[in-house]
Every structure is written in C-alpha cells, then in structure tokens.
C-alpha cells in the first residue's frame, strides 16, 4: 500500500520530466500520422477554395507570440491557400503584436517557390493595415468605413492610395473574413459585430482552449473553426501541404497520452488508498 501512498505524493518534477520527454522526443521523429479532417475545418477550407480569383479576404491577427505555436501554422497555410488561389489579402490586428506575426507569416510564405513565382506586390495583392486600438469598436467602425478606421497602413502609406484598398469601403466589399484569435478581442467579437451587424462571412482559427466556445456559432454565424494545432494540421492535410502543424501532432499526441497515463494512475492510487482508509 505504501507504493500507492507514494504515488499520490509523487514529486511534480518527475511529472515534468515525463512531459518534457513526451514533448521533445517525438519532434525528432519523421513518422507520418493519420489525421482526419473534421467538417468544421473542411467548411473553412471550402469557403476559401470556392472564392473566385481576385476576391478580397480580410485576415485579422488577434494573438501574440505566446499562442503562435498553435496559430502561426494556421496563418501560414491560410496565406498559402489564398495566394495560390490569387485572392487579395487585407491584414489587420486587434492585438498590437498581430501585424508583426502577419509579417513573419508572409515572410515564410514568400519563401515557397510556388508563391514566389507569382511575384506578389504589396498594395496590389496584399496589404497590412497594422494594429488599431479599440477592440470590438474597431470592427464596428470598419463596418462603416475601413478607410477612416485605418487611415494609413502599418508603414504610413495612405490607405486610400493603395490600389487594393481602392475598391474596399467596408465589409460589403470583403468576401471572406478569417480571424486568428487567442482571446479578447477575437472571434466572439468578430461574430457579434462583423457577422451579426454587417452580415460578413467569417471563418476562424482559435487556440484549442478557446475553440469550444465558438461551437454555438457554427454554422450560421461562423463558417467553421480550426481548433488548436489539430485544426492547423487538418487544414494542412486538406490543402495537401503538410507542414509545421502536422509535424507537431505526434508530439502533442504523446504528451496527451502521458497526461492521461498520469490521470489514470493518480485515480488508481486514489481509489486504492481511499479503500484502505475506509477499511481502517
């Protein structure tokens, strides 16, 4: 019985050691895993895939580097998808770090030979309007006039002088909105203001913690949602471009298994010691 008592009082550093092994070792593996594409991810993919070339897509980067491991792969695969379909991309951020994360993603995507060959031009094929303070009020304001909400892009060019922005006044001229969100302001605010108020079409990529909160909005107010790294991996699979998220899935899977293993042995020890206490 002492064994189970000891198990209950296990040093947390032992658990930490197991977690670090579970997370890091699989990163060195090149094993390919079976990843099923969920209907929610497929819905977002189809919504983008069905847009005709030249359609305008607004991408809102509402996260910071803490959530980048989950959301950055989603940004990459989404940009790659948009540019390969010749869609026009307008980037904004409701989080101050968002537009920088967008620049990092763009830099990565432009290294892709297929995208590089398209010779995409800033201001014509994509723009980054930068960060704007005001949370959901920024969305509300964009519904009236994007040019007054963002008078200049993140480098100071006047928005009205950017060729891509000349045909865009408000959400009526945006064919699809994609929100990458790690909290507030994020997808919920986009649903409440851009979708409910201005009937915009919205898809989202969320952290795994946040994604379940978006389920009630699907499919009426939200086309679909990419939840956590798994959602990112599914998007890469459906786009037939397995990349970062797919390669991280083994690591995530093993770490989930380790946590479940600890929960099971913790409960086992709990029941055995509780039974002993009752008897005594």
């Amino acid at each position, binding site marked *: 019985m002492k064994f189970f008592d000891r198990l209950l009082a296990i040093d947390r550093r032992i658990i*930490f050691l197991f*977690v670090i092994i579970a997370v890091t070792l699989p990163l060195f593996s090149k094993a390919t895993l079976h990843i099923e594409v969920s209907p929610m991810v497929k819905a977002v993919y189809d919504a983008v895939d069905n847009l005709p070339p030249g359609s305008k897509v607004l991408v809102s980067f509402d996260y910071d580097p803490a*959530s980048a491991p989950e959301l950055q792969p989603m940004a990459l695969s989404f940009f790659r998808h948009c540019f390969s379909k010749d869609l026009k991309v307008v980037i904004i951020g409701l989080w101050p770090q968002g537009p920088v994360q967008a620049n990092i993603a763009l830099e990565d995507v432009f290294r892709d030979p297929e995208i590089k060959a398209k010779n995409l031009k800033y201001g014509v094929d994509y723009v980054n309007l930068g960060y704007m303070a005001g949370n959901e009020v920024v969305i509300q304001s964009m519904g009236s006039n994007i040019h007054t909400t963002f008078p200049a892009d993140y480098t100071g060019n006047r928005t009205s002088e950017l060729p891509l922005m000349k045909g865009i006044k408000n959400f009526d001229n945006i064919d699809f909105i994609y929100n990458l969100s790690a909290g507030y302001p994020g997808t919920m605010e986009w649903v409440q203001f851009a979708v409910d108020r201005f009937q915009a079409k919205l898809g989202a990529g969320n952290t795994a913690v946040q994604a*379940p909160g978006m*389920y009630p909005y699907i499919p009426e107010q939200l086309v679909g949602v990419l939840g956590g790294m798994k959602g990112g991996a599914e998007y890469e699979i459906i786009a037939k471009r397995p990349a970062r998220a797919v390669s991280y899935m083994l690591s995530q899977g093993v770490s989930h298994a380790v*946590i*479940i293993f*600890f929960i099971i042995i913790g409960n086992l020890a709990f029941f055995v010691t509780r039974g002993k206490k009752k008897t005594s």
Partner: protein
Amino acid sequence: MRREVPLIITGIVGITLIISYFIPHTPFNLLQDLFTDWYQIVAAFAIILGILNLLRISLDKVYKKKKGWFFGLVVVLSFFFIVIPGFFFSGGRGFQNPGTPFFWIYFYIYIPLMSTMFALLAFFVASASYRAFRARNKEATMLLLAAFFVMLGRVPIGYYLSSWLPESYQLATVADWIMNFPQTAGQRAIMIGIALGIVSSSLRVILGLERAYIGGE
C-alpha cells in the same frame, strides 16, 4: 459635477448606440461613427496612459528600493531597450518590417520569452491534472471521462488506439459527439446567461444606476 458629467456622457452615448443598432440611418449612423472615432482616440490615449503609469510605478519602486525593486528595474530597462531601437533606429513607421532592429528584438528575444512562458503551462497542466483530476463523485467522474475521450480523440494516437472498432465507437467519433452536443449545449447555456447579465448590467450603467466605474458604490 465630477460624477454627473461622466454619467450623462455614458447615458447619451449608450442610448444613441442602442438606437443606431435598430435604426442605422441619419443622424444615428453619423453619431455612431463619431462615437466610435472618439472611442478609438480614447483607447489609444489609454494605452499611452497605461505605459506611463507602469513606468511611474516601476521607477518609484526602484527609487524607493521597495520590495521587488529589481523586477521594476527589469521593466524599465526592457521598456527602453525595445522602445529606443523601435522609435529611432528602425526606419520610422516601418519598424515592424523584417530586418529592422525592432524586429530583431521581437523575433529573437520577445518571441522566445513569450513562448517559454506559455510552454510552462504544459508542465503545470500535467501536474495539476495528476493531482486534481480525481473521480471523487458523479460529476467529477463525468468530467474525467469527457476529458479522457476528448484528449485522446483529438490526437492521431486516438485513431490508432480505436481504429479497430466500428466508426461510431472510435475515440475521434466519441470526442466529436462530446464537443458537438453536450459541450455546445453547455456553452450555449453559459453564453445566454452571460448575455442576459451583460444586458442588465449595461442598462444599469446607461441609466446611471451602476456607478462603480467612476468610483461610486
């Protein structure tokens, strides 16, 4: 007057925005645009105010050698370490462009620091799950089972563990069912409750009954 003016502004803006939602025509749409512009300006100033306040508190802590003064010093030094290169040595408005000193600090210092902080969560979640996730009663057991199925069903390992079962009994299917039905129903109930709470507290603020935000009771 210090109390009445904010209350009057809140009341007028709140009522106008409610009306403009249902009647999005002149003059309400124009007033709505005006108020959202003002809000954005106030929000931008609030950021500056927040930064100055943080600096003031940190500098005061360092100057008076209060408890934790060293962390205050780290805040002040980090602030200038990123602000000075960002403002003066990163090409003006294009400071967020790859290749600038600001971007270098962001990419090689800020991102790893933030990622490290967030990655620590995995260790604490594992440790906390081990200690707290116990089937002590019926509710806890249901939560435990739901967590078990969702955690395994959402990763490829779940597929390999249950691929020999008929599809409707596979871990991924069970996880999807939990997420789509009981989870969504629970979320909806919570959201409706929150929405009703927001409506009632917003009305209290607009009507001037709730004054905690201006220092009242």
